[in-house]
């Protein structure tokens, strides 16, 4: 279903000839997405091909595009950095807005710790710019390559530092939103012309419509600017970097400390979470290294330190005695970065950590105390510029579980995650890296109190049988969760992309009120139904 020539011309007139395309090769580069293979026929890597791709440069252009879409009844989908299938069209007849030209940091208000950004400002860039001013931003778990605006408005917004720097949902201080009807809403103080410092109000806070626990994932208009709260950074204005590619590391000053702390069992580990919440010492707290599997991960992290080695050498590392010992030592572990605002502060925090470890029977993993390992940890964890190492094994993974809640709640589904995965690993359907390949924030919201564990299953994306097994695993996890009275995890959200309308409606009916409100909101803001099911709604009976 090609666009009418009138529509194509009208859209082209908005952005100019160099910024619109309907060439099939260009369209396929937009259709290609990670995770498409889990929901598309024959495990294709391609989502439906967009009818055209546009590169708008301003809010004005975005608004004009949306208005044109309303005129011609064309569905549209915008993405920023475009990582994974949520950003792609879900059906034929959709135009793709690629927001990469809107890449400005509009303002950094150093004193008030506020940054105003456009969609294509990635976390790594924002962090680099605010570090120059003694500030830091939340880098979401997806890493430094992802758009900060997306974390704040469109999707999740937690990261390893959320316990200190806040979740981006919390940090949102205002948004500029081209709604699907073509109108623009600026939430909070900026809407009143007072500057970007408060997203709430005036009066009842329409910030609540902008996003909830989750954003609209491109299904309800386009966010063209937002303001986010920044946090203290008592470090250098840029990361000093040493080491050879890819094992970069950063020798930060002594008020920065990175630890991998480990525990004898899950109970002690989660107890430590509570103790850390109560004592407010964390700058970064996250299970990160275990994402590559408790059995295989340590070998990979050691291999990674040696630039002459390749993944092909991993078995050699697994066989090393010291790696075997390390694997056992850090089997139940997570990563911490303590940052002192002063020398007194870091000394106090260290003392508190030692006491917490004493109380919970935890320990600091020795290998990670070595200066170069600590420097590696600091750079990796604070910039999160190598997060896509989760693709290193096979090019494909899916993250199941990750239901957020108190540590006591997460503790309940951890064994289910292991059980549900073990069988698939043992049969060789997923990478056999250890049934605990779980990562997640120790504190996914500001101040802690909530955490989650995402169980990674690695499948060979180039092997359709392996991909099929991963999909089976996802379904198996949902069944196991249901059997044990645990809500479906992220795998449920992923698989929903491929469901039929009827299947989806059955799911949505389990929370009828939420999805009825969303229908009413969508009807009001998207009268021509130009968004997609990323903003799910329950049909009117």
């Amino acid at each position, binding site marked *: 279903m090609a666009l009418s020539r009138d529509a194509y011309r009208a859209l082209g007139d908005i952005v100019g000839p160099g910024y619109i395309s309907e060439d099939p090769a260009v369209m396929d580069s937009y259709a290609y997405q990670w995770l498409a293979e889990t929901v598309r026929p024959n495990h294709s890597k391609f989502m439906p091909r967009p009818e055209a791709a546009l590169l708008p440069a301003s809010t004005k252009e975005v608004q004009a595009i949306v208005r044109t879409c309303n005129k011609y009844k064309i569905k549209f989908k915008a993405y920023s950095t475009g990582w994974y299938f949520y950003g792609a069209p879900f059906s034929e007849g959709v135009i793709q807005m690629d927001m990469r030209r809107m890449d400005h940091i509009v303002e950094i*208000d150093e*004193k*008030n710790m*506020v940054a105003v950004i456009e969609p294509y400002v990635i976390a790594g860039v924002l962090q680099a710019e605010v570090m120059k001013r003694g500030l830091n931003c939340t880098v979401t778990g997806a890493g430094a390559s992802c758009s900060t605006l997306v974390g704040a408005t469109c999707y999740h917004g937690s990261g390893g530092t959320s316990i200190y720097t*806040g979740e981006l*949902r919390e940090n949102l*201080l205002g948004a500029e939103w081209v709604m699907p009807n073509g109108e623009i*809403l*600026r*939430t*909070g103080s900026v*809407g009143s012309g*007072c*500057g970007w*410092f*408060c997203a*709430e*109000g*005036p*009066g*009842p*806070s*329409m910030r*609540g*419509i902008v996003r*909830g*626990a*989750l954003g609209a994932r491109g299904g309800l208009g386009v966010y063209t600017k937002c303001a986010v*709260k920044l946090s203290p950074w008592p470090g250098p204005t840029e990361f000093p970097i040493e080491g050879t590619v890819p094992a970069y590391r950063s020798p930060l000053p002594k008020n920065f400390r990175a630890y991998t702390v480990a525990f004898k069992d899950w109970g002690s580990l989660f107890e430590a979470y509570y*103790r850390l*919440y109560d*004592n*407010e010492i964390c700058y970064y707290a996250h299970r990160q290294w275990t994402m590559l599997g408790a059995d295989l991960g340590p070998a990979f992290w050691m291999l990674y330190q040696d630039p002459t080695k390749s993944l092909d050498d991993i078995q050699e590392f697994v066989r090393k005695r010291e790696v075997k010992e390390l694997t056992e030592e850090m089997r139940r572990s997570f990563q911490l970065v303590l940052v002192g*605002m*002063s020398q007194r*502060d870091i*000394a*106090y925090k260290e*003392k*508190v950590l030692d*006491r917490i470890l004493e109380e919970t029977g935890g320990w600091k993993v020795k290998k990670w105390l070595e200066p170069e390992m600590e420097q590696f940890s600091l750079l990796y964890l604070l910039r999160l510029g190598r997060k896509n190492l989760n693709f290193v094994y096979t090019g494909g993974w899916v993250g199941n579980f990750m239901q*957020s*809640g*108190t540590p*006591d*709640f997460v*503790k309940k589904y951890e064994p289910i995650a292991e059980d549900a995965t073990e069988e698939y690993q043992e049969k060789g359907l997923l990478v056999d890296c250890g049934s605990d390949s779980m990562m997640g924030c120790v504190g996914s*919201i*500001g*101040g802690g*109190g*909530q955490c989650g564990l995402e169980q990674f299953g690695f499948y060979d994306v180039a092997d359709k049988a392996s991909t099929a097994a991963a999909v089976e695993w996802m379904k198996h996890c949902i069944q196991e969760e249901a059997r044990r*009275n645990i809500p479906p995890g992220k795998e449920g959200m992923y698989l929903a992309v491929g469901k039929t309308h009827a299947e989806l409606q059955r799911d949505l009916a389990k929370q009828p*009120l*939420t*999805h009825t*409100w969303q229908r*009413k909101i969508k009807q*009001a803001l998207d009268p021509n139904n130009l968004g997609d099911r990323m903003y*799910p709604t329950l049909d009117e009976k």
Partner: protein
Amino acid sequence: MKVKTSAGLADIIGKQKVIDKAQVLDRYSRDNSFTPSMRPRLVVQPRNADDVQKIVMWANQTRTPLVPVSSGEPHFRGDTVPSVPEAVIVDLHRMNKIIRIDRRNRMVVIEPGVTYTQVQPALAEQGLRLSMPLLPRQSKSVLASLLEREPRLEPKYSYTLPEPLRCLEVVWGNGEIQRTGEAGGYYPTLEQQWKMGLAQVFSGGPGQVDYYRLVSGAQGSMGIATWASVKCEILPGVHRFFLIPSDDLKDLIECAYRLLRVRLGDEFLVLNSVNLAAILSREADGIRALRDKVAPWVLIMGIAGRDLFPEERVDFQEKDTRDIVQQFALKLLPAVSGVRGGQVMSTILNPSSVPYWKLAYKGGCQDIFFMTTLDKIPEFVNTVFAGANALQYPVSDIGTYLQPQHQGTSCHCEFNLPYDPGNKIEVGRVRELLQTCSEALIKQGAYFSRPYGIWADMVYNRDAANKEMIKTVKGIFDPNNVLNPGKLCF
């Protein structure tokens, strides 16, 4: 839920919960603001969410306006005074159960009638406390305070502006009942959630709307909250208060910025001498005497040690604070002009004594408050003082309260204008001052995020898009406009 249309309210929820005594109705027909009085038709006192839902359904069927009220008197903002005739006051103060205190997750679940006076001692028994607004009146509902987005004393714990409010149970204007945030997720009842170890911690959603934000700041016009979960802090083992006096507000603000930048200080607020005197003294002469004695501006800072090594934490943070304060040629002091930090601490960690602190000086008080950033505050102070001078209102009587919020990204700025309510000239002057200063401040860029009374028109006339959106949302959640009509923009 079906409600018999023909039935009167008393038939639906029981006549003991419905009051129509003129004396009672009169009390709800006015408050301490300049809002025109309007006598309600009835006062109804629900005991639980089921009652509330029945009342709202009845109101929809009978097209009766409802005005939710949680706090006891005195009221100040006009939001609880009906704007239209024949309204029914839904007084929630009898819904005052502390449903659950969870030390491990530091959460408390409370009904709307629970006051700070009631909850803090109960929490203290569990080693917890709630962060508070500045000296709430003893009858102030915790839930109402949170929904009104009253600023808290501890900016560093404000990871998002509505903190520490997390989840709600809401009866929307159309009578639907919903639990918000994590509480509206997979497990339908609180009991099931508790059994699974959940504690209504996460405020977002459910789904892609932050419902609790739609209720916040709505002056009861979107929904009626029947319980809320609230994040608590650990009761400090060691807690000290310090004062940083300054003759120059700008110097103090620069210092405040530096301290906020490293998240030093638990309680962290700036009062001018008038307000410092007003919170510490209980009568006019004492206020005047103290006001004239202390520095014009005082930054009040509490440093708390919680859980492990509390003494050490307070010690090092005091030293760190002192190092910073010295850089601004200011002093971190345990006492100023006879005012001791401990005295301030015992005052502001509790609700106000009676009479309410703002009324102690002259018996009446009008407030002007808005949000801004710290750096802009001196300009706003100038505007208000100039406005007062123009109307011959004594600048020396104006109380000022600055409360950094959201970890220092914004600041609540409040001016308190005491007056004698029995003196018509003073009343007229304050009324005019309120009007002219508000207009001038808005023009100057003050953000009236909580637009009570006369501010609503001023604010919504400047932000047509938000006004339109609010009306849209109101149309969805309260399609018959039964909840507090006439307020805000509908």
